[in-house]
């Protein structure tokens, strides 16, 4: 037991540096046009990798041989994706994920760590996806550490789920679990008969991972200015994100209320000068979100309703064009099994900008505008065949207001219990290159991954 705890701390120590699942070497382009790398040297990475391997070896050795099933689970995976036009590789990734948990009565710890090789960047690294300590009393569950948190009832549409996400992983065709990024913080769940509460505190801000210019054709209003800097919220009490949820199941209906105070997870950009910018600063404006959701059976399927008010704390009157306007977001969903192994899901999403007049007035010339209302419609079709070992699915986003769309057709086959092969496409298109999906028009890609679970 002692040895395992020691191993746990060693692993945490070796992984304490966060490695994004895309090993972004922090690059900037200096005046002469040369790329400057500020990343870890290959040597340091190898040392980290060696340490992790040793720790895992140590963990394996410390397992009592009497256990019938191994305590370590995980998978080995090879994942590739390439742009359809041009054939540039978006993902070339081989990885091993290891999951380990150990519990003593009502206390347990869990680790989910990836060791990967990126064959595009020719780098190897590790990524501690999750690592936390759980404690449970009759009323209270406490979880401290790096953890993935998911709230809300949308299907790939997030209103009250303000926790960090990796959209690049989704757009490039990684397995869906890589869409969610972990938060470093603490979560308390308190259960009463009448109502349950969840309180989350995240002192270490983690931004969304958005598609990077190195791999995606992004719309950038400051394309000609190369000098960039990013300012993130500080890891102190004042900048700690706080999220609260009260929830209850009442007569089969799932009801929830949400509140969040923290920051937008997608950066805003501002220039030191509008006419002749020399440096572009990315920053994360403060945000408060208040919302509610309800989900239950109806019309032979499941009906979902979710709404949230986005209180843009640094631009409540909507006059700063670099900061998002206050918005109300609304989602209506319906999911139904049409026949055996065939399910259809439909969602309607609406975003309402509260001070559209001010937004239009303050928008600098040449910057793309935005309508007061943005709508999205999504469709999910899932069909299972061959005793649920073959899965065909389609997820489609379409925005009637932006006139753009995003399609994800996918096929998965489970060769046996351990091995599966998945393939699919990410197809983007739009009338305008400045809309959310429209900007990725040239990034249509085909992806495949093979996974062996153990």
């Amino acid at each position, binding site marked *: 037991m002692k040895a395992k705890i020691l191993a746990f701390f060693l692993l945490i120590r070796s992984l304490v540096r966060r490695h994004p699942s895309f090993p972004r070497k922090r690059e900037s382009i200096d005046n002469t046009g040369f790329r400057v790398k500020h990343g870890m040297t290959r040597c340091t990475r190898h040392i980290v990798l060696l340490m992790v391997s040793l720790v895992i070896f140590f963990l394996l050795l410390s397992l009592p041989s009497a256990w019938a099933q191994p305590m370590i689970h995980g998978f080995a995976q090879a994942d590739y994706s390439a742009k359809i036009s041009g054939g540039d590789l978006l993902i070339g990734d081989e990885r091993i994920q290891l999951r380990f948990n150990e519990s003593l009565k009502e206390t347990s710890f869990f680790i989910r760590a990836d060791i990967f090789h990126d064959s595009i960047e020719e780098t190897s690294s590790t990524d501690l996806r999750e690592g936390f300590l759980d404690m449970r009393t009759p009323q209270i569950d406490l979880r401290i550490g790096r953890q*993935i948190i998911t709230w809300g009832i949308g299907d790939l549409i997030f209103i009250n789920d303000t926790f960090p996400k990796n959209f690049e992983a989704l757009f490039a065709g990684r397995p869906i679990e890589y869409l*969610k990024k972990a938060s470093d913080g603490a979560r308390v*769940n308190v259960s009463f008969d009448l109502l349950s509460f969840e309180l989350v505190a995240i002192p270490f801000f983690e931004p969304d991972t958005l598609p990077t210019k190195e791999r995606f054709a992004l719309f950038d209003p400051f394309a000609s200015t190369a000098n960039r800097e990013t300012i993130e919220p500080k890891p102190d009490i004042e900048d700690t994100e706080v999220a609260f949820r009260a929830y209850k199941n009442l007569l089969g209906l799932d009801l929830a209320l949400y509140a969040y105070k923290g920051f937008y997870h997608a950066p805003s950009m501002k220039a030191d000068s509008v006419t002749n910018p020399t440096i572009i600063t990315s920053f994360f404006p403060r945000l408060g979100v208040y919302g509610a959701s309800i989900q239950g059976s109806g019309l032979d399927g*499941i009906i979902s309703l979710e709404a949230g008010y986005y209180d843009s704390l640094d631009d409540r009157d909507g006059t700063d064009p670099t900061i998002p306007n206050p918005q109300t977001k609304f989602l209506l969903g319906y999911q139904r099994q049409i026949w055996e192994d065939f399910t259809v899901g439909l969602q309607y999403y609406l975003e309402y900008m509260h001070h559209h007049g001010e937004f239009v007035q303050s928008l600098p010339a040449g910057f793309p505008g935005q309508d007061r209302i943005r709508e999205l419609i999504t469709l999910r079709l899932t069909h299972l065949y061959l005793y649920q070992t073959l899965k065909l699915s389609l997820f489609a986003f379409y925005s009637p207001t932006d006139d753009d769309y995003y399609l994800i057709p996918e096929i998965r086959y489970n060769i046996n219990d351990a091995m599966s092969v998945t393939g699919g496409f990410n197809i983007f298109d739009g009338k305008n290159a400045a809309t959310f999906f429209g900007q990725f028009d040239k990034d249509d890609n085909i992806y495949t991954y093979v996974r062996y679970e153990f």
Partner: protein
Amino acid sequence: MEQKNRAYLFISLLLSLTFPSFVFALSSPLPDEIARRSQIALFYPGKDMKARIYMRLLSKDGKERIREMTMLRKNLQEGGEQRYYIYFYQPADVRDTTFMVYKYPKKDDDRWLFIPALNLVKRIAAADKNSSFVGSDFSYEDVSGRDIEDDSFELIKEELLGEADTYVLKAVPKDLRSANYGFKTSWIDKKSFLPIKEEYYDKRGALYKLFTAEEIKEIKNIPTIIKRTMKNLQTGQGTEAVFREIEYNVGLEDEIFTERFLKKPPEKWIK
């Protein structure tokens, strides 16, 4: 006297020719009563139950897939509302996944699935109870039961099946769209009211699925099917389900069947 007897015999004979089931009606329970008692014996024994279920899915070409889970069940009323909690050990890609069902009579179930890699609780549309359960030959209905009101029952005969004295009950869905079968014949043990064998006929009347209770044991004086198989005669695939570590009346708390325990399984019951 003799005349009276002869008249009685004549009437019985006439009745049994026109209504074959009338012959048993005097001595046997009514078909609906057999169906009800069989449902209680199969899906409602004890106030609650805990079992580790080991399923082997065998394809025609001999490939084997494994589903292993712990199932917790609690009855709110006998023959009425139930709660199910299932934790998966195997296959590896669904390990730690949990599944919860609120089962209601005369109404669609509420179902929730928890996907640990996304920390996501997902509600599952449950309109079709004939869907395969985890890719096996058992349907959701085979696992948690079908509303008695959805079928009409007829007692065809009583016969010895092996050593068991059985009622042979025919069930026909009142609404043909509500079931995959056109009709079902069950051999129900007269003592335990557990089905020993069930034949499923498709809507054209061809036998396509066969259920067999391979092994029955008494656990806390409750006769329990320890090993059961469902064979699909059309695809050649079959599923064998073995129940281990079965316990009844363990005192499962109501709160186990909530989101809190769906997200983090109860250590006391799931190991």
